[in-house]
Structures are given as structure tokens and as C-alpha cells.
């Protein structure tokens, strides 16, 4: 059974249709990529999957529970986490604190017990710190642990966002252009990281423009064009799909591989 089921999803902004009657299923334990030209509706799709936008029509089901109508923090509680295309770091906080925010749903204490520093706060802080360290280690960010987020270079911040999302312990991780702006070495590292995350049992839904990365890292690919589905299949099937080549990939795939 699919982890994420999207059916007949539609969203328009003031007469412009961003997503039109889109359906697809994401099976568990895979890297599932969504590609398409700029303006194809990929980020709009992510925003609906994470509860930031509400669709005009259609349904989103995650582990058999409806996502539509929930607020983002409720979607997160279902087990969906994400990263953002334009970095959304907490630049006013340290690296460790950023990732500890990710542990929010795994901990329980409130304002009152915090104010009085009840003993359970100390236990919870220790646990959160440990979880945050683990998430940072997965992303090879151990050495930045004591620094301020604002002082880090772009490539590190991209991975820090992933560490923060992993600290949520999600079942599904939405990654919005994790390799955008990265150099070749960093992109290679990102590819390994995405595979590591997938192998640890987290399903990855990926939006990415770097075709080399997408083809190497994905189990399945969905191609969007003007908000609808153009094709869906394995990387090999997509590369050989005539409509995809005509509409989007052109000769680029041959170069990339």
C-alpha cells in the first residue's frame, strides 16, 4: 500500500491553474522525485502536501489519514517533514538549537514546567540534545555544533535544514531542491545523504532540477508539466519517454549521464 496517495488534486491562484487534476502514489521506502520545468507546480504541490496551502479540490492521504484541512504543525505530527527551496533556517539560533527545535514533537513539556524548571525539563533537554546530535551526525555536521546558524556557509545550511527535518523523525521527508546552489562535490555528498536517509527507512519525496542527481538517486520519477502529470516511472523509463524528451529533457539527459 502506498504511503502517500494524491488524488485529483487541483489548485489555482486567481485563475492561473498551478496544479490540475493530479494523481499519484508514493510507495514507502523509496526516493520519489518530482521534476518539471520552472512553474510546473512542484513547490505548490509541496506546500499542499505539508498543509501550507489548501487545495481547491482533490484529496491527499498520508498513511490512510487525510491531510487536507490540517495545519502544517498537524501534518508534521502525522510524520511529514520538509526542507525549503529558499532556506528557512532559524538564523537567530545556534546550530544545535536549530536541530533541537526539530525534536519538538518528540517531547512534551510546556511553558509552565519550563518556567519553574521542573526536573523533567532537565531529562527532556538531555534527550533532545542527544537526538539533535544524532541528526547532525547523519548529515556530517558534527563539527558545526557550537556555531551560530547565521555564520555558516550556504552548502552547510542546506544540510542543516535536512538535519533539522530528520530530528522530527518523519516517515516522509519532502525535500525541495536540496542541491540548488551546491557545487559538484557538495552535490555528490547530497546524493549520498539522500540515499542514507532512504535506507534508514524514511521515504523521500524530492523536487530537484539537477537531472544527474535525480536520475541517480530516484527509484521513481513523476514528471509535471503545467500542473499535470506528463509521465511517471523509473529513471530509465522516464529517460526513454518520448513525451518527456520532447517537452522537457531534450538532449540534456544524454549529457547528464
Amino acid at each position: 500500500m502506498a504511503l502517500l496517495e494524491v488524488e485529483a488534486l487541483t489548485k489555482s491562484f486567481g485563475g492561473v491553474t498551478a496544479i490540475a487534476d493530479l494523481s499519484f502514489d508514493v510507495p514507502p521506502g523509496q526516493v520519489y522525485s518530482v521534476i518539471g520545468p520552472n512553474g510546473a507546480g512542484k513547490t505548490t504541490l509541496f506546500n499542499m502536501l505539508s498543509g501550507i496551502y489548501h487545495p481547491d479540490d482533490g484529496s491527499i492521504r498520508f498513511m490512510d489519514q487525510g491531510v487536507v484541512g490540517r495545519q502544517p504543525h498537524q501534518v508534521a505530527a502525522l510524520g511529514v517533514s520538509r526542507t525549503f527551496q529558499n532556506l528557512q533556517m532559524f538564523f537567530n539560533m545556534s546550530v544545535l538549537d536549530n536541530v533541537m527545535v526539530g525534536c519538538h514533537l518528540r517531547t512534551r513539556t510546556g511553558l509552565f514546567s519550563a518556567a519553574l524548571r521542573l526536573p523533567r525539563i532537565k531529562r527532556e533537554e538531555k534527550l533532545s540534545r542527544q537526538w539533535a546530535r544524532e541528526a547532525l551526525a547523519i548529515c556530517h555536521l558534527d563539527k558545526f555544533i557550537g556555531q551560530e546558524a547565521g555564520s555558516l556557509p550556504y552548502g552547510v545550511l542546506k544540510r542543516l535544514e535536512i538535519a533539522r527535518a530528520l530530528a522530527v523523525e518523519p516517515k516522509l521527508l519532502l525535500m525541495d531542491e536540496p542541491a540548488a546552489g551546491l557545487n559538484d562535490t557538495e552535490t555528490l555528498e547530497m546524493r549520498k545523504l539522500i540515499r542514507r536517509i532512504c535506507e534508514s527507512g524514511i521515504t523521500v519525496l524530492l523536487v530537484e532540477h539537477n537531472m544527474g542527481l535525480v536520475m541517480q538517486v530516484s527509484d521513481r520519477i513523476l514528471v509535471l508539466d503545467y500542473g499535470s502529470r506528463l509521465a511517471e516511472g523509473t529513471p530509465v523509463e522516464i529517460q526513454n519517454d518520448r513525451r518527456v524528451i520532447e517537452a522537457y529533457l531534450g538532449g540534456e539527459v544524454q549529457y547528464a549521464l
Partner: protein
Amino acid sequence: MRRLAGLCLLATIVVVLPILFPDNYYVTVVGVTALLHAILAVSLNLLMGYAGQISLGHAAFFGIGAYTSAILTTRYGWDPWAAIMAGLALTGLVSFLVSRPILRLKGHYLAMATLGLGIIINIILVQGDQLTGGPDGLGGIPTLSLFGWALDTDLRWYWMMGATLLGVVWLALNIIDSRSGRALRALHGSEVAAEMMGINTTAAKTGVFVLAALIASLAGGLFCHQQSFISPDSFNFFFSIELVTMVVLGGMASTYGAVFGALILTLLPELLVVFEDFEVMIFGAILMLMMIFLPQGLFVGLQNLVLRWLNRRRSAAFGAVGE
């Protein structure tokens, strides 16, 4: 215990000052006001500095606390402590009810809405003269007593305000360094990312808004019994702005910065009295210069300077060992 080192230092200063100078005007009279302002600034800093939600109406909650306690003790003969509790309850209710619609707004709009709230509460204090005494104010408010120890001298009030400030600073430090505190800082950094990490940002904002209001209300309750006379002027728009200035001047998102800002803004006008007619002008010029040269705030800016200096000295020392 490193976490509370600053608090220990602050406690030492608060305790030692009146022991060294028990009859000094600046300690026992100006000091009480400075401590009161510091309590208010620390509470506003939780909302504004950490959670990033500006409020230009914080004096309103200070006023609700003060007037509730003043009215209940003078007109209905309540015990002062019970009256302060009632003030807290009323403030909690009002702040909770207004927080939902108000905190939907962001930036300038939030500033406008809180400004409006402050003005409305002040108008109620002026116009409700049958209860509040109107613009003439309300007098004859009894003083507090603590375990049979009447707070009837400036020095005793100093101890009371000092203890309250230390308690409030302790609470603020605890909150910031916890799951809830991180949630507040996170929604300041990026609201959408905070939501995506599972933080109910609406609830978090409401929580800190009500908490800040409650602390201000407690300060108001203490203030009215200390002054024994209050008028709406102490709770007007200008005082709200002054509180914001204290937070910004000390350095946003720093509890000690808020305390420092409150101290400077209370002391400076007192010290500038010698300039008579030029007092306000010099005061304004000092504020401008501080913000130009230490834009992160006086406390945070100085703290950074000292840390950088220490680092340079340390690396210089290491360099010498190397040679």
C-alpha cells in the same frame, strides 16, 4: 550552573547596593523604579525580543493589574494580595481574548493593533471615573505587608521589587532555555519552518502574550501599592513606547539586556536633571548615539565587544606560547 551565573551576579548587585548605600536616593527611590521597569522590560522582551511579536500596548496590562488591585482595595476593602490575584486573573482573561485576533497580524499591523489596545485601555481608565477616579487618579491605596512585615519604607519596597525581579529573570531564563523557549525563538526566525517542525505557532504566540501580560500585571499590582496613588498617565501610550525602548536599547532577545536597558532609561533622566532645559535634548541625543554605534543594543553590543577582546587576548597568548 553556568546557566545561572548571570543571575547570581545580578542578585549580588541587587543585594549589595542597598547594604553599601542604605540611604542613597538613587538606590532606594530611583532603584525601586528601575527594578519595576526591569520587571516590565523582561516580560516585554519575552514577547518582543524572543518571539518577535512587537507590542506597543504593554502598559495596558501593567495598568489593568494596577487599577484592579487599587479599585478592589480602596473601594471594596479587599486584602491587597487577593486584589493582586484578581488583577492577574483579569489580565489573563483580557490578554487571552485579544491575543487570538491580534496575533494573526504581523509587523506594522501588529504594532498598530497593540497600539490601539493600549489606547483603548487608557481611555477606559480615564473615562470610567466612577470606578477609576478618572484623570484625577485614585489615592489612598494601602501598602502591602508580607508575613506581618509592612512594606512601609523605600528600602523595604526595594527588597520586594528586587526579589520579584530576580524571580522574573529566573523564570525568563528557564523558559528561553527549554522546548517552549526554542519554539518561541523558532517562530521568530521562520514561522513556516516552525510550523513544519510541529510547533503550533498560534498557541505558542498566545502563550507568551498571556505570560508577558501576567508579569506586567503583577508589576502593576506591586506598583499601585507602592505608590499608594495612581493615575492613567502612568499607563499611557508613551510608557508603552518607553518599555519598547528599554528592550531595544538593552539588546533584543537578551534578558539581561532588558534589565540593563531599563536601568539606563530610568537612571539617565535622573542624572540629566542638572542640564535643566536641555535634559530631553541630551537624552534623545544619547539614545541616538547608542543606537548608531551599538545597533545590537547596549548590553548585547558591549557583551560582544568584550567577548571579541577576550578571544583576541587568548589567541595572542597562545601565539606567544607558540613562539
